[in-house]
């Protein structure tokens, strides 16, 4: 745990240094996400223009929460892949493997540090969205738990994709494909899908979690008194992805070392 704390500190300082050095890029990231969201939000609003004000508020809240969940999930999803690519391109990936006992821990610490920094970036984005759409978001502690479970599942999935990148190289399009799918989950509901398809897609990380999160934020679920029946499938889903993700990553790391592929991309 102390080791993870030290790695987190190292990563956080590195991220903050980069954030400070490339402040314009950081601002551009926030602006891009804001503009994408507003585009989608205004189009959907024009489609359901004759809805009741209460329904419209619920829809808007769901969309804001869905989009913010997508914002973080897409960051986590492409995280492992992006970092492996960047490190190989810089020539530092092998140095990281030599310098740390468990590269997986470095990745986890790096994710936690990125998440912390992204939370800081999220505050202006969230304020902008709330001001622009006029929605008020409820975020009880139960929503925090759902949010963490959602991201854990996505992290496990990201490790699987990262493992594929270690072995097969240039798999940058894979996270992108799933990001598109996640964007769909963020703005629509699984309930609108045909039976069978929804059951299958709800096995993916993010899908079920974002539905629950939107319901909590819009006040259509139990909110603060979230039931075990809702949380348990999310927890099992997240734990499953994390366990499989770690196993796949460790196996692919071992294979990459056998094949001498670590330093290439």
């Amino acid at each position, binding site marked *: 745990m102390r080791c993870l704390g*030290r790695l987190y*500190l*190292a990563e956080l300082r*590195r991220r903050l240094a980069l954030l400070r050095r490339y402040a314009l890029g950081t601002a551009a990231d926030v602006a891009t996400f804001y503009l994408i969201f507003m585009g989608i939000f205004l189009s959907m609003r024009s489609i359901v223009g004759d809805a009741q004000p209460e329904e419209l508020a619920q829809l808007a809240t769901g969309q804001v929460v869905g989009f913010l969940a997508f914002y973080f999930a897409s960051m986590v999803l492409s995280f492992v892949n992006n970092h492996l690519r960047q490190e190989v391109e810089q*020539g530092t990936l092998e140095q990281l493997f030599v*310098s740390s006992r468990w590269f997986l821990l470095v990745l986890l610490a790096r994710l936690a540090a990125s998440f912390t920094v992204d939370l800081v970036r999220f505050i202006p984005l969230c304020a902008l969205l709330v001001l622009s759409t006029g929605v008020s978001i409820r975020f009880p502690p139960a929503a925090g738990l759902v949010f963490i479970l959602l991201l854990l599942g996505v992290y496990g999935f990201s490790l699987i994709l990262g493992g594929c990148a270690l072995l097969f190289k240039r798999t940058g399009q894979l996270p992108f494909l799933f990001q598109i799918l996640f964007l769909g989950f963020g703005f629509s509901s699984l309930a609108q899908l045909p039976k069978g398809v929804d059951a299958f897609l709800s096995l993916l990380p993010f899908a079920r979690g974002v539905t629950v999160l939107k319901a909590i934020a819009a006040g259509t679920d139990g909110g603060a008194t979230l039931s075990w029946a809702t949380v348990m499938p999310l927890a099992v889903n997240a734990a499953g992805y994390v366990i499989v993700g770690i196993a796949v990553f460790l196996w692919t790391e071992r294979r990459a070392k056998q094949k001498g592929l670590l330093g290439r991309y």
Partner: protein
Amino acid sequence: MIRVENLRKVYSVGWPRRKAIEAVGSLNFAIERGEIFGLLGPNGAGKTTTVKMICGLIRSTSGRVILDGHPLSGHSRWPSRLVGAVLEGSRNVYWNLTALENLSYFGRLRGVREADLKRRAWMLLDEFGLKEKARDVVGTFSRGMQQKLAICCALVNDPPILLADEPTLGLDVASARAIRAKLRHLADEESRTILLTTHNMQLAAAVCDRVGIIDKGRLIREGTIADLLDVLETASYVVEYAGTLSEAAARELSRIPNLRHSAEDAGGEIHLPVDGAESPSRDLYGVIDIVRTGGLRLLLVHEAKPSLEDAFIRLTEEDADAMPR
């Protein structure tokens, strides 16, 4: 300090028909504390694969690596406590961070305590002449400075072993000289064990206590520079001439034992080994007479000392000749 026993790496390549390629075959060598060992070899000889197996980046097919008495295998595959590695030269550090930020980052990764980190980072920057540049972004550094910083980062947790893959590759003369001096200092003054790979004979001759010549994954010779030079004549006289040697003159030359003659269109060189010759000076005057009487123009007569490069070429050529075709 470093012991490599029967280290072997075989890659399986191709699809659908797999083909086994032996990158390194049963390598054995040992390096003592405070010693610099150079692994010399042409491109693709297996030098980098060997270094990467020693630092755990490539898993060996068989054999073992023992670092300071600890075998590098299974769960103990974490050599960073003992080993600092410079694998990609100047690209081993983050170019978008400052020198100090790089050292702090790698120090934390390598488990240096917060209380010691700053002191250690500043000490290394000072030692490598980078103190003035501590807060500059590495992207603005010269290649030599980036390479120095990469070595600093590898040494940030004070490991007793340093592995350096082509440490002076692409550096200008002054930077290469500075790195050479630094490596020698690390071995002599700080008793660090250094394994470096290179195909730069000057670097090997200048800093290595011992060298191993590796070719096609096999260690074909190992020893001190003097040992390796023993494979050649210790010295020879060289007679350079201009013009074309007649058949009669060539016949005369062939009577002198151990003489090597290389002729080109407008001239040539005659090498006369000193060692083993009954009377080297008599042979030399004989050669000069043949050149003069043959109507050739004598350009230069000098004594040549063999270099490590000569030994390397001779050994790798002999190895290629000995390989089954």
